[in-house]
């Protein structure tokens, strides 16, 4: 069965085509285009305009790359939430149009759950992980418990990606700043003390961000600040992930979200997993960032488990909570 997925929750618009056979996922194509604001953060309307501009073209490209005529698509899936209203609406509208035009069923899926399910789909040994999901706006620790995907820990203020980007922006770094910060951090091993804020399984970054910007104003070496920022923030992320693993008694950890591309974060979580005798997983980068393939894949497994939606059920939900999803495909 072939599913076309449309991702559009924030600054990226993605079209992915996956072929599902039982519970194994093969990605046929996965096209992503990212809106990069000239300056400042994301403006939801402008991001949505960007998505409108490229979506039709991207669908064509995805079909071409998958070598699939549109008629061979069996199911249309889209990101129903959570995310920015205008962006979600763009993705949903395109999905409805495609579904009507091709006479194929439509399914709206939860973006956060998709980040977890794609890991299970493409990494066969990753069966029951705790997911550390780190992106721009989102930072959550999610795992399956009592019939649902539950958020065990999350940021109490801003996402880790936003924290890195805001730090970069205050220094006029180009967006996104994460990769640049990672490079600069490699040049130093001199730790400057920064606030470490973990409360149980929750985490906060704004104190850390303010202190890092302050160091820069006081002319501390940029390499030292980037190093200290990463070491502090990632240690805290790793700690809450370990707490959730101990709490849920799970032996697998999975990374997802754009910040999962950072090698230092990967190293830390993998060391933690090793010390616990647990397994560490991370999908390839294009499946970590916001992408259409993960949306397609989750749509597919929901459809397989019997979920059906009418157009009326496809209203977007900006605050779609992870634990609102009825996970009937797992036991």
């Amino acid at each position: 069965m072939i599913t076309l997925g449309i991702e559009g929750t924030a600054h990226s618009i993605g079209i992915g085509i996956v072929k599902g056979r039982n519970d194994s996922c093969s990605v046929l194509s996965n096209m992503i285009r990212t809106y990069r604001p000239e300056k400042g953060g994301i403006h939801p309307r402008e991001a949505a305009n960007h998505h409108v501009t490229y979506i039709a073209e991207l669908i064509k490209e995805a079909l071409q790359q998958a070598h699939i005529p549109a008629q061979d698509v069996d199911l249309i899936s889209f990101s129903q939430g959570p995310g920015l209203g205008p962006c979600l609406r763009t993705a949903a509208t395109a999905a409805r149009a495609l579904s009507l035009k091709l006479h194929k069923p439509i399914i709206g899926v939860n973006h956060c759950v998709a980040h977890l399910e794609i890991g299970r789909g493409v990494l066969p040994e990753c069966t029951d992980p705790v997911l550390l999901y780190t992106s721009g706006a989102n930072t959550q620790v999610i795992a399956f418990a009592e019939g649902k995907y539950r958020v065990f820990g999350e940021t109490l203020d801003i996402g880790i990606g936003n924290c890195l980007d805001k730090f970069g922006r205050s220094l006029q770094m180009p967006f996104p700043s994460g990769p640049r910060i990672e490079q600069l951090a490699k040049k130093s091993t001199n730790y400057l003390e920064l606030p470490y804020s973990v409360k149980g399984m929750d985490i906060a970054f704004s104190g850390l961000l303010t202190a890092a910007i302050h160091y820069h104003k006081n002319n501390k070496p940029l390499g030292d600040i980037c190093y200290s920022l990463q070491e502090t923030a990632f240690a805290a992320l790793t700690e809450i992930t370990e707490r959730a693993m101990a709490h849920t008694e799970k032996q697998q950890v999975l990374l997802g979200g754009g910040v999962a591309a950072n090698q230092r974060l990967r190293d830390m979580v993998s060391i933690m997993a090793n010390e616990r005798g647990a397994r560490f997983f991370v999908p390839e980068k294009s499946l970590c960032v916001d992408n259409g393939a993960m949306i397609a894949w989750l749509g597919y497994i929901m459809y397989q488990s019997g979920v059906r939606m009418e157009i009326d059920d496809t209203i977007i939900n900006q605050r779609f909570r992870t634990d609102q999803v009825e996970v009937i495909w797992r036991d």
Partner: protein
Amino acid sequence: MTEENSIYQGAEAKIIKTMCLGYPVVEKRRLKKSYRIQEIDTRLIASRTKEEAKLMAAARKQGVCVPIIFDVDIQQGIITMEYIEGNRIKDIYNTLSKQKRLKLCRDIGESIGRLHMGDIIHGDITTSNMIVYEGRIHFIDFGLGEINHEVEAKGVDLHVLMEAMESTHSRFANEFKYVLEGYKRTYIKNPKEVEGKIQEIVQRGRYR
């Protein structure tokens, strides 16, 4: 050398049972983590050990039973404390008669009320962090605690117990109301506001 055996290992600490000055004690040893750099590791272990010992002393002042502290080694991250015989509430709750459960709930509530009167937030009130010995409830594991006078913090503190009871003692989840009954006997500052806050937290819909 006295023999030592590890009775528990969590994400953050290891509990070792041993002897000190002829008394049975436990050592709570915070574990070094090699995923984080030395500077962060040392700082976290020291500050958390110190904070936990401080809160235990503060709780005692409020008249709440906690293990007697024999020694605190801040650098090594070790708290040596009295070994509390008896049973964790988690392990016995479901076996008790209704009458005993309700009394226990009220007693738990009274103790939490005393902590909160001193603005002591335990941070992880679950039934595995309370041990009943000779009819008295001993609180352990103040590692996530803090001193905080805010209603929000107190509400969250009680809400953690509410959720713990729902997941670990789901048949008796509705008995949390007796905890609140006890709480109101000793927490006389602003119990109504704290109770309202718990409702608000439930509405927010987080899970732990």
